[in-house]
């Protein structure tokens, strides 16, 4: 069997369309996941009460149930539960969004709790209003701590979008798999998308590692 990388280029438009679906799922998951994470994080920071318990439960459940299972659950159960015909792309992205909400809530919370207690006390001593304390003092510092894990999470989420292939969403991974089976050129197509994912994720992850090290050096 001759290795023929040029065949990938011939089917490039289809792969590009798959990449578009992948990005769409990624965007939907983030756009819904970040607000969920903010709410859940706020709930967890309350310390006690029903809200804190609910938020903690949410984080536990959505971090422990495997992503693939969650995606299948959404894909098959959302239409009968809501009565609407929900497409695979939307149900899958929604599952990823709920999971992202749980992971990001933990990342946000860890960031906020990394801010020194003295900052709270100083703000209180200066009689700053709660709102100003949050927006001008706590969140800017928390964002610094949360940035490396947040970027890391983005790479994880991009890898997670491949799971939509299991419910037949024609993302990059499924396109390559189908093209491979149609042309009997699995090696070329599967290697090509492995390279594509690597080329996207590698620099982002390296960048996150670099700022993580700089942050660790700065705060020591």
């Amino acid at each position: 069997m001759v290795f023929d990388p040029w065949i990938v280029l011939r089917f490039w438009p289809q792969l590009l369309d798959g990449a578009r679906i992948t990005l769409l799922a990624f965007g939907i998951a983030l756009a819904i996941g970040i607000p969920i994470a903010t709410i859940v994080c706020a709930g967890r920071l309350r310390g006690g009460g029903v809200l804190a318990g609910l938020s903690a439960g949410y984080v536990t459940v959505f971090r422990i149930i495997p992503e693939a299972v969650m995606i299948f659950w959404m894909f098959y159960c959302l239409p009968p539960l809501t009565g609407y015909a929900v497409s695979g792309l939307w149900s899958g992205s929604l599952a990823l969004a709920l999971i992202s909400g749980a992971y990001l809530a933990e990342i946000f919370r860890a960031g906020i709790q990394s801010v020194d207690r003295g900052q709270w006390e100083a703000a209180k001593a200066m009689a700053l209003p709660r709102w100003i304390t949050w927006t001008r003092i706590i969140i800017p510092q928390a964002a610094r701590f949360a940035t490396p894990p947040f970027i890391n999470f983005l790479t994880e989420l991009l890898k997670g979008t491949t799971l939509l292939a299991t419910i037949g969403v024609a993302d990059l991974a499924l396109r390559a798999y189908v093209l491979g089976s149609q042309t009997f050129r699995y090696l070329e197509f599967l290697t090509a998308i492995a390279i594509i994912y690597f080329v996207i994720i590698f620099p982002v992850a390296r960048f996150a590692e670099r700022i993580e090290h700089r942050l660790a050096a700065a705060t020591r």
Partner: protein
Amino acid sequence: MIDLTNLDFTWLPRFIIPLSWGLWTTVWLAVAAFLIAVPSGLILALGRVRGGWFVRWPILAFVDVVRFTPLLVQAVWIHFALPVLTGYSLSPNQSGLIALSLHVSAYICEIMRAGIVAIPKGQWEAARALGFRPWSIFRLVILPQVWPLVLPPLANTAVGTFKLTAILGIIAVTDLTRAANRINTFVFRPLEVYTVVALIYLAIGLLLAWGAATIERRYATPQRGRSAAATNLALNPAVEASRHGF
């Protein structure tokens, strides 16, 4: 809209055996992959820390390629593309086990490397000054100090390994997830089937996560004489939070 009072679980007793088989496949795959990945991750980490460039660079390349591509792509590659290169076809379970152990060993390599690097250089030097041979230094002096550092992240990786098995259904490994798909095609009760399966995963996952949390509590307390890097490794929840998903 579905009427929630119409839930029907009468299929459950009839399909308890396929469900148990699926669960068994999930469990042994996760356990086997983890048991393969811990020693191989440790060896890879040792090579990365102590080896020459001709050892370090291939390991670095392997670890990065595995960590920065999705497991689904790796599994499909090993099951469908690798046979083109080798000429041997693997069964879904074999491919799944290979993909999962490779994937997890790359992550464990990173954990072990961080653990080994966290041990102060003086420990290596002191052991050498006392006349230990290189392998003995690692086995008798370094490794006993590395274990308590790496146990909490390793426990989290174990939870992650269990979760990752659900992806292997794509190459027709009949794990619990795929068993659910197949049962659903018989009974067509998706809400009930997938909820039951999700609850099974949740129950086992909670058990594992509880174990991991216990280990974390036991080992995460910073001890006297530990380097700052070690304390960072053990105590940074923000770093860990994002690292056992998908």
